[in-house]
């Protein structure tokens, strides 16, 4: 069990981390334009005047900040050293706050949004998919299916924007932006929590609606194959109730591909959460990323990338580890 299941997955986890870290190291260095030069030209374009000596000094200090000093090999060694020590350098726009600090303060918002979204959309989508697969000819199934097919391909940004326009502007029910109202006292009291929920509602909605569409269609696909399997037909033939068939026969058997889907799609959903946060100025990693783009904070963008890869691949690894608990065929091999 350990050797056959855990070990290969752990190796894959390490490989993803290594490949990802290397991508982050090499991509900026292989690009035709140099982050330092682009930063400098940005500054001159903004009308700042710098004499050549100051320019050179700035260039050097930028190189040091960005980890672009010395030969490629030295940079590479330094890069891994910094990774292992958990040092992602200082943020440029909020100098000298370390990138790690900024990530730490944004993280809870994103994690909260993402977890609630995943739980809600995955569970609802999965159940809906299983039930509709069992009643393929019902009117309701067809309506749900068309709705899901219409929703699924909509980009995160468009969905979020549409919800903002509709529920924050045309019908101003929910706040337009932010994680909580300015001036609310942060604390464990009902007023603050209510405010928190009101702010989280629209971003969450936009993620959940898209999420349900996706999970529903995937589950529908898997489950409609399972409905044709011998054991479901046989359970039907033996008079088991439909609820029992859905709960004990269809869902437990379809859950494996659905979990694989979860593991594979975590990166995609994470990206979606960042985009949604940007639209709603929700104070998570997404907004941090947005500010980094606006301020051209190269170190922060790098840091967010490194963090995303570690976080997402770890999440995937954890989901993978849940697997054998659910499938006796893996457990008893």
């Amino acid at each position, binding site marked *: 069990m350990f050797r056959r299941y855990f070990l290969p997955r752990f190796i*894959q986890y390490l*490989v*993803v981390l290594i*490949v*990802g870290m290397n*991508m*982050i190291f090499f*991509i*900026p260095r292989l*690009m*035709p*334009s140099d*982050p330092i030069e*682009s930063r400098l030209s940005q500054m001159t374009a903004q009308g700042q005047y710098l004499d050549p000596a100051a320019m050179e000094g700035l260039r050097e200090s930028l190189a040091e900040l960005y980890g672009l000093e010395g030969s490629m090999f030295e940079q590479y060694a330094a890069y891994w050293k910094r990774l292992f020590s958990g040092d992602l350098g200082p943020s440029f726009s909020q100098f000298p706050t370390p990138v790690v600090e900024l990530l730490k303060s944004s993280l809870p918002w994103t994690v909260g949004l993402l977890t609630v979204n995943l739980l809600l959309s995955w569970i609802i989508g999965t159940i809906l998919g299983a039930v509709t697969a069992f009643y393929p000819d019902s009117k309701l199934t067809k309506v749900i299916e*068309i709705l899901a*097919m*219409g929703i*699924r*391909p*909509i*980009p*995160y*940004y*468009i969905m979020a*924007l*549409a919800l*903002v*326009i509709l529920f924050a*502007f045309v019908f101003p029910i929910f706040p337009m932006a932010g994680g909580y109202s300015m001036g609310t006292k942060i604390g464990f009291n009902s007023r603050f929590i209510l405010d928190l929920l009101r702010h989280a509602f629209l971003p969450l909605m936009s993620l959940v609606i898209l999420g349900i569409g996706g999970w529903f269609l995937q589950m529908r696909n898997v489950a409609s194959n399972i409905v044709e399997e011998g054991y479901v037909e046989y359970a039907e033939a033996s008079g088991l109730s439909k609820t029992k068939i859905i709960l004990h026969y269809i869902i437990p058997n379809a859950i494996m591909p659905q979990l694989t889907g979860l*593991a*594979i799609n*975590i*990166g*995609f959903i*994470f*990206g*979606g959460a*960042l*985009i949604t946060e*940007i639209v709603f100025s929700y104070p998570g990693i997404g907004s941090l*990323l*947005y500010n980094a*783009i*606006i301020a*051209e904070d*190269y170190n922060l*963008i*790098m840091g*967010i*990338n490194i963090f*995303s*890869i570690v976080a*997402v*691949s770890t999440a*995937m690894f954890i989901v993978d580890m849940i697997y054998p608990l659910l499938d006796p065929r893996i457990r008893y091999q």
Partner: protein
Amino acid sequence: MVRAIKDLFRHDKKFRFGFSIMVFFIIISFVSLFSPYDLSTWNVVPRDLSPSLKYPLGTNSMGQDIFWKATAAVKNSLLLGLIAALVSRIIAIILGLLAGYMGGTVDRVIMTITDSFIIIPLFPLLILVSSILRASLDIFVLGIILGLFGWANDARLLRSQILSIREREFTKTAVLSGMKPTRIIIKEHLPHIIPLIMATVINNIVWVIGMEVTLSVLGLSSLNTPTIGTMIYWAQQYQAVFLEMWHWILTPIVICVVLIISLYFISTSISTYLDPRTRVRMIKGE
């Protein structure tokens, strides 16, 4: 091909919807070539006009005709989708086939890289790349970059399809009939994987159009090229929502949603139609 479209158009509502709209959008793309205005210059028409006969979708605060801007946006977004899909298809097909047919170490190496690309969140990486390239991100460069990022899932899908076809008995029959590997791939296996490739092309275009919107509204593309994303960007910059200039902000949003949904419908209809199992039943007359 013509017969497939005819069959689908007649008997599949979703396809009829998607296909009609796609035809409309393709016509629109060609219409954009006859624009009376230069679409990248500002103040060629009066600002902030509501829709009228002269300006069917009104004008924006930058003095541009929204209708003509939209036609060009449709063209450019579709073009971008095609470029990216082409690039990513080439990578996906080559890697998928290579991994599927070579097996062994080659397969393992390719799949390790592919899996990493699937798991790693691409959005922040794309931000990293485009924030470095920024100004030089025209349709072509952006298309290639999105192409370089959007192949992994489909390479994996193709590989698994190849693996299962390769194990089927008719492959052995082909080998015993003295067919050479390339001929087996082209004559025996391609007909089975074409539906999959077709579906992934369209799904990839859908993804690319959505990603372009996202990158553009973050200001990470060449903002003077009219695309669905840059139209939204400028509408947001001028606070079209607060000014209640709905014709300005909603035009790109509606175009984007309708375009993407119709592409998606076409893709699902085609893949059901071309599914080998359906085709076998149709041959059989059942």
